[in-house]
């Protein structure tokens, strides 16, 4: 069997089995509605309630927050599995630090106190590769101003694991906490840069497609970028979310639903690099559904939007930042795209986006 067909079968694991048999499918891991339902109904159900004033599990936010005397302690955790483990623009090491640092930052906690790193690795994984992963983790830590303070290592037998899995947990203090549910009508939607880069670069690598080397993952810690935005207009950033799995579509939906607003975005204002635009067009994919690993969506009070935008653009990772839309008091929970021709709904992806078949 060709490599391509093995990949296809992996992706098609998302197809439903017999309807009466309830099993976990890849769709549950794709970051969309199915995943939220699984977490809400099964994985997060039944734990004793946390303290009522804390941001806990029931908030389904990027992390948890516990109030201290003069601020908040924010905690988040993330397991990283990516195939291939090394891809254009990064690797699993860089991803594992960036993912957790960014989840903290999305809560307003931009100065991590420390990270944990739990690595599960498959027997046979080359030590030289492990050293490369470790070195990328170090580089990402330096960029983020973070460090790993404790860890755990497990080795599993050959074939019991696909290479390597890294879990990181992050702890940080925040002066104030930003939720993903704080949007109000009139707020502007700001994106910190181009969308779709990570997922498209990975998909091209997986399918052996070469787009003249123009594709690279955006994986990066963006806590310092986020700090600039927060300081530009204190209190004006009302909601944040990083559009990872499920892409911008899922992130905007979650923000709209939790905040009780509708969101209208304009296609022509959304930054998409020419390489991603072309690759997505060829593969029949919607950049809205594609994962990002170094971007954030901010909901900003209208009068502060320009100041926040200027602050973002002053940082190299925010050079392509743009105001892309706004929140409305109608169409609650919906995301609407103005295509320039007309308007339509944006839906969340169902399962892993697959390249077009015909």
């Amino acid at each position, binding site marked *: 069997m060709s490599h391509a*067909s093995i990949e296809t*079968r992996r992706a098609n694991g998302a197809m439903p089995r017999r309807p009466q048999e309830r099993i976990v499918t890849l769709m549950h891991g794709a970051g969309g509605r199915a995943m939220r339902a699984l977490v809400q109904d099964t994985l997060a159900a039944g734990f004793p309630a946390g303290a009522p004033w804390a941001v806990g599990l029931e908030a389904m936010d990027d992390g948890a927050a516990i109030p201290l005397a003069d601020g908040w302690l924010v905690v988040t955790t993330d397991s990283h599995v990516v195939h291939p483990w090394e891809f254009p623009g990064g690797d699993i090491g860089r991803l594992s630090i960036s993912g957790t640092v960014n989840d903290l930052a999305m809560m307003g906690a931009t100065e991590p106190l420390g990270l944990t790193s739990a690595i599960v690795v498959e027997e046979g994984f080359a030590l030289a590769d492990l050293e490369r992963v470790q070195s990328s983790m170090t580089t990402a830590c330096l960029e983020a101003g973070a460090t790993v303070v404790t860890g755990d290592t497990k080795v599993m037998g050959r074939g019991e694991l696909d290479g390597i899995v890294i879990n990181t947990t992050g702890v940080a203090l925040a002066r104030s906490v930003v939720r993903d549910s704080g949007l109000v009508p009139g707020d502007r939607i700001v994106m910190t840069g181009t969308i779709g880069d990570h997922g498209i670069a990975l998909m091209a690598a997986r399918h052996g497609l070469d787009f003249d080397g123009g594709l690279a993952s955006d994986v990066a810690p963006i806590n310092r970028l986020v700090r600039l935005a927060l300081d530009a207009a204190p209190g004006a950033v009302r909601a944040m979310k990083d559009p990872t799995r499920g892409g911008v579509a899922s992130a905007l939906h979650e923000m709209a639903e939790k905040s009780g607003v509708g969101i209208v975005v304009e296609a022509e204002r959304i930054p998409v690099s020419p390489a991603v635009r072309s690759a997505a067009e060829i593969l029949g994919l919607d950049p809205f559904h594609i994962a990002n690993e170094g971007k954030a969506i901010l909901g900003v009070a209208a009068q502060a939007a320009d100041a926040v935008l200027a602050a973002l653009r002053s940082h190299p990772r925010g050079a392509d930042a743009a105001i892309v839309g706004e929140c409305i008091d109608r169409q609650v929970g919906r995301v609407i*795209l103005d295509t320039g*021709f*007309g308007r339509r709904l944006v839906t969340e992806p*169902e399962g892993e986006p697959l*390249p077009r078949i015909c």
Partner: protein
Amino acid sequence: MPETLARDDVHELKFRDPVKARALTAAIERVLDEIGRDRVSVMHVCGSHEQSIAKFGLRSALPRRLSVIMGPGCPVCVTDMPEVDEAVALALDGKVVATYGDMLKVPGTAMSLAEAEAQGGRVEVVYSASQAIDLARGTDDEVVFFASGFETTAVATAAVVLEEDMPANFSVLSAHKYIPPVMEIVAEMPGTNVEGFLAAGHAATITGSAIFERFVERHGIPVVVAGFEPLDILAGLLKLVELIRDGSAAVANTFPRCVTAEGNLVAQERLWRVFRATGGNWRGIAHVPNGNLRLRDEFAGVDARRRFAIDLTPLWGHAPTTLLQSCICGDIMAGVAAPTDCDLFGKECLPGNPVGACMVSNEGTCKIWHQYGGHPEL
């Protein structure tokens, strides 16, 4: 800066110019004024047209009194249950069934191919006919290519059937369909009121636009061949309402950069060397004379239907789900109902768990409306 580049990019795509689009919709509006009726209905017969219309939000920009109906333009959706049953039976019988991803979830009488796979059947997703051949080259097991699609895709199947070094363990189970005959059926259906057809540009690159001359003569309804970019579709619709206004039953080609009157003669020759048109059921629509493409006798050896004794009886013990009886896919594909008229739409019937075939395929009206909101007031 990518933002600027992205905008330049949009303008480089000259068939996606919103300013020109607005000029075209204004022109359509004026022609509708001249027609003077409060409803003009036209039909397209192509999932790719519906994808474009929905993806670019064209319906919300078009005048409300112009009803653009999607007809039976999704080959996956019109694949009849017994055709799926044949593939299911082969998969359960140990043959490797290679097919396009869209076909996996299409319900058969007893089960879909995805369900057959869950019961131990062998199903492989391929992206092309030639990938199915590659699959056969890599194994000694029998590989059956369950081929679906209109004449465009059928040409690709014909090309592999004509390959000289075709592996002996490869065969084709054809569910290919031929579009021109079903247009005749839909035009004659009571209750459709279709005043003009927008024909699919990609199929017409093969068949040529002249193929619609006979249809136009017989039914007195204009046909416009159109491409798939937003401006292609709007220009096609403008031409179509102009022909309706003028009472002119003619064929027009608004996709001349790809389509000629005679079409791709080499492709046509191969298509008809391998396939013959024969009557058959299109799911939910009707028996369509000459609507199915089947392998000619010379290729009996490659024809899975003749190579294997396909036994469907073990499948007949299973009744279709009762939900399926409320499915109105047939009416939707015939253009007499919209997805929102269906009680199951968006409730019991969802892309993750489709009841009818229109919710399965990316080219199905229900799936597209579920994805993009159909005809919304936004």
